[in-house]
């Protein structure tokens, strides 16, 4: 195969050349700097930077909170997508537009708003406080913030797939004697599973790197409520460039792994849905 197929359209060299130049200057070269710097640390230095107890505690917290938040989003995202696609109710298109709010609202604004709502004297926080549940300034607060920013991912990946599911499939299942729950579990859910998984992974990937909405609500106690992105900033402010770079490299590798997984999932769902 040759590099490029013939075409009558002009401008291939110019547009691709500019694309590659701009991409390299702004994204690829700066990103590779991080690995270059991390590599320059030397293995032992790198290893001690990324495995010190404070860093490990932050990985555990970031991964754990992101996992819980993404699972909450799978359940409620699926519910919201289901309701939006299947049930007519007044104000449906408004609700549909509102789902994107966490994308449009700057994370810092979301952060201070959630903190105010869930603080001990806040609208929702004081109900929780009555039952002895501390929401803001605790790991629970982090989960709340990450749920907020991750919600649209699951809704927006599941919604179109649910939309296109043929009603005849359900009719067939029904005539064969399946009840609603069986139809959902054995017919609908397997169909939307790739989309659900994609949405979950997208939400999870976003949650791991999130900073703005979490810093306000988390309380930022080292070893307790300090997420990994915050630890990177702390190290940077202490001029511990080596520490910041090492931890950032670990995060970046994780993000790239997730990116590969998302591409794989999308490939799988593309195959699944074009075959159906």
């Amino acid at each position, binding site marked *: 195969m040759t590099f490029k197929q013939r075409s*009558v359209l002009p401008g291939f060299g110019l547009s691709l050349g500019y694309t590659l130049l701009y991409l390299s200057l702004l994204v690829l070269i700066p990103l590779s700097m991080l690995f270059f710097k991390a590599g320059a640390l030397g293995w032992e230095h790198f290893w001690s930077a990324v495995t010190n107890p404070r860093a490990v505690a932050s990985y555990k917290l970031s991964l754990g909170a992101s996992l819980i938040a993404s699972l909450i989003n799978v359940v409620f995202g699926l519910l*919201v997508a289901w309701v939006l696609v299947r*049930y007519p109710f007044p104000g449906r298109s408004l609700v549909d537009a509102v789902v994107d709010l966490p994308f449009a609202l700057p994370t810092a604004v979301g952060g201070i708003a959630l903190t105010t709502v869930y603080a001990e004297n806040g609208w929702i926080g004081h109900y929780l406080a009555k039952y002895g549940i501390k929401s803001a300034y605790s790991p629970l607060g982090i989960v709340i913030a990450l749920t907020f920013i991750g919600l649209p991912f699951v809704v927006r990946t599941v919604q179109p797939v649910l*939309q296109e599911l043929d009603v005849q499939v359900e009719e067939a299942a029904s005539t064969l004697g399946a009840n609603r729950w069986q139809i959902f579990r054995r017919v609908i859910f397997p169909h939307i599973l790739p989309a659900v998984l994609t949405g979950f992974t997208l939400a999870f990937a976003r949650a791991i790197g999130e900073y703005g909405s979490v810093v306000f609500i988390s309380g930022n106690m080292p070893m307790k409520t300090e997420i990994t992105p915050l630890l990177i900033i702390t190290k940077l402010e202490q001029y511990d460039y080596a520490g910041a770079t090492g931890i950032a490299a670990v995060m970046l590798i994780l993000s790239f792994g997730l990116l590969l997984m998302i591409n794989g999932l999308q490939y799988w769902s593309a195959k699944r849905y074009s075959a159906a």
Partner: protein
Amino acid sequence: MSDSSTFMELPRITTLPGTSREVTGENPTAASTAADAIVPAPAARSRATTEPAVVRWLLICLALAFLVLFLLVPVAIVFIEAFKKGWQVYKESITDPDALAAIKLTLLTASIAVPLNLVFGIAAAWAIAKFNFLGKSVLITLIDLPFAVSPVISGLIFVLLFGARGLFGHWLDAHDIKIIFAVPGIVLATTFVTFPFVARELISFMQAQGSEEEEAALVLGASGWQTFWRVTLPNIKWPLLYGVILCNARAMGEFGAVSVVSGHVRGETNTIPLHVEILYNDYNFEAAFAVASLLACLAIITLLAKAIVERKTHRLLLEGQTVGEPGTLAPVPVARH
């Protein structure tokens, strides 16, 4: 399925190119109603294919309760807190010199980052959607990279390049150029995090549209630039606008990346979100929420504009598909799914 459709920010509900064509072929009325509403109204279902009314309403209420609790309450609180001490305090907070400086810097940053990414987006979409070449899907993935990177790391990489101890630190210092803890760093970091927005909107739209119209124009004797200005640009104006809206919203609201490179000098290197943070950490809550309410308004405008433009784009795609059957002159370069 276009590879770029849903990575990170704002996956969109447009029907996938291949499938919507099938819909148009089978049932033109269904397609035209779909064009009027982005989310077509749920079709009436028989008893065998929907749940009992009690279950339906229970699920609707549960979903709405979740959305109100997690989305609407936080937005409402922004405005309530902002006006808690009245209009006067609100006005003073947003006309404070430091706040005005932050607003100015945010506008300046967006006005550099957005056009840069706009030009890039058009170039990338032209190369990717109109031509078939080796490594195309790798290129699409690379364009999405900034979405996969934590905002904090997006800032950090520029500190590693241009910071005092960075690769170019000494050289910049010797020439008395300041990038980190100054405006250029903020612009760079913002451009990085908003990099994919315009490109990915245009790529998926232009791939779905194909290039028959451009081919026709060229055959009729138009030059390359004429074809672009008179045929392509009018066709892509809505998705282009959509990409710009998203890009702009993120550029104005970015917090993490900018926070790393800014240095937080009041009145000098503070953008609106950073100013909100400083006010909030000073326990000046009314002012923090007053300034934050500006960003919340931006978010609401963004959502509105998004809904309008989405509707236009969707209609455009459906129209294009009924007209543009491949009576092609040359082998269609774009892989049709």
